[in-house]
């Protein structure tokens, strides 16, 4: 319990540091936000007035605290280009990205764990080679190229779907999910390859341990040993890796959303970087960073729960 408390405190400190860095990063941008809002030939009085109105004349740390408080309340500031609150811009875009991430993560876990277990328990030179080659090839294909090829094959040649005709969540949930399946698979493929490889080598390492021989000599069945003894240990590094995957997949959506023209946060982020619309960029980056920190924290907690050695 004490350890959990310690971890939670360290999580809160990490979130503070990450948010402070994200805040400071966008303070050092060359150029004043007032020139962006008023233009270059504004009078000094007007600039000074706007500066005090925006609170820019106050010390950085106080501005950070203000920003953090309003951020937690869900007020992310106002977009320069759209002249609307960032939170309303994100309201219909964030669910799409989250749905895509969840779908892709579920596909990764549901496919890679059974295959990894099977691959780990078969000892065959040819199976080994097939897995290494598959792994190498799948990791060499960038998800966005996978996306383009599947747009071409399934969209243009086979005409199973129309690339670009996204069905929004409010229109039809099942339609939206079915449009997101292909991008989710593209994001999942390299992660599946890596997870399978990792689980496989993790299981094979456990198979050489003495406790496996002991269990065998006590007359336990192979599948029983696998389920009750080996997997408990072999899954530990894989859980950490899956957490990293969840973070990578969330980042990967930025790119895959461009390929399939999905109106999610990734597309908004890229267009906002192009427009130098910093309130939007900052909000999305902080949300993504917080997500990654929390995912890593969850993996850490899961590991402690699975591995009693860490609890001491």
């Amino acid at each position: 319990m004490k350890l959990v408390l310690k971890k939670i405190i360290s999580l809160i400190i990490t979130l503070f540091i990450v948010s402070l860095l994200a805040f400071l990063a966008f303070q050092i941008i060359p150029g004043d936000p007032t020139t962006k809002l008023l233009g270059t030939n504004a009078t000094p009085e007007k600039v000074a007035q706007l500066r005090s109105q925006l609170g820019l004349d106050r010390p950085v740390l106080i501005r950070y605290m203000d920003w953090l408080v309003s951020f937690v309340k869900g007020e992310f500031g106002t977009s320069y280009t759209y002249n609307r609150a960032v939170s309303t811009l994100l309201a219909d875009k964030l669910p799409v990205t989250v749905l895509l991430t969840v779908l892709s993560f579920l596909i990764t876990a549901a496919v890679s764990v059974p295959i990894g277990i099977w691959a780990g328990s078969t000892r065959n030179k040819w199976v080994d080679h097939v897995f290494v080659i598959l792994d190498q090839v799948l990791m060499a294909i960038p998800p966005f190229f996978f996306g383009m090829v599947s747009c071409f094959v399934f969209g243009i040649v086979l005409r199973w779907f129309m690339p670009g005709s996204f069905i929004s969540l409010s229109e039809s949930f099942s339609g939206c999910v079915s449009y997101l399946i292909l991008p989710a698979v593209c994001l999942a493929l390299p992660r599946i390859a890596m997870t399978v490889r990792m689980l496989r080598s993790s299981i094979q390492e456990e198979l050489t341990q003495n406790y496996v021989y002991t269990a065998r000599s006590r007359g336990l069945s192979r599948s029983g040993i696998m389920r009750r003894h080996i997997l408990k240990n072999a899954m530990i590094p894989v859980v950490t890796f899956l957490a990293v995957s969840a973070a990578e997949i969330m980042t990967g959506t930025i790119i895959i959303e461009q390929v399939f023209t999905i109106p999610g946060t990734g597309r908004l982020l890229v267009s906002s970087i192009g427009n130098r619309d910093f309130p939007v960029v900052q909000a999305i980056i902080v949300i993504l960073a917080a997500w990654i920190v929390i995912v890593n924290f969850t993996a850490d907690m899961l590991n402690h729960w699975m591995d009693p050695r860490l609890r001491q």
Partner: protein
Amino acid sequence: MKIKKNAYFITGGILSALLTILIVVGMFWTPYSTTAMNAKAKMQPPSWSHILGTDNFGRDVFSRVMEGAGTSFVIALLVVLIGCVCGIVIGSLCGYYGGIADMILMHVCDTITAFPAILLALVIISITGGGAYNIVLALGILFIPSFARVVRTQYAGIRDLNYIKSARLMGVSAPRILYAHILPNTLPVLIPAVTIGFNNAVLAEASMSFLGIGIQPPQASLGSMLKDSQNYLNSAPWYALGTGLAVVLLILAFSLLSEGVQQGSRRS
């Protein structure tokens, strides 16, 4: 370091050698001009005269792939060079001397590597703006922690071995111990780290240029060409397929080579 030959090492080696030759040749000579537009030969499918077809301006796709692969290759090399050299310096000092500085620096490294490199690169690029120099700098800095981590672990393991102790007793200077005595022994771990880093750099640059915030036109890299070709997926699919296959081959060649090195050094 002796490497036992194996199928991965040989295939990867031949593929990377071929690609490197093609890229170096592409820096001086390409079958067609990469900039001259030819309205008569717009969007032609692959043929004997244009083996990967032509693009929307009638430029030869194969020639452009040669040039674009060169840009991607040089950027990835520079990124790995920055990351590797700085990583070796930081990692060797941290691993050899230890102490509070080591603890703090490694904690910072772990925090940075917890975030996907592309996300951090996006933050840096959104502040500094795109272009080849900023991409190289941003990715190069972001690649330092992973190298520093790998090198530190090696140095911490080797620093207390007897041959290092005797070298110290013989009065060998610290820089010489660090880089003449220990560094060669980290190679079996460092070389795979370099090839994996190279692949990640190719992928990261391609992703960023694909998003339109990396290499800016008229300069072309494989990523920016893929972004271009996406608009012609319907009318000129060979443009996207040829360029994408070049990215895949470039990454595959070096990861096969790295797999071969790892398997070869494990056995010997």
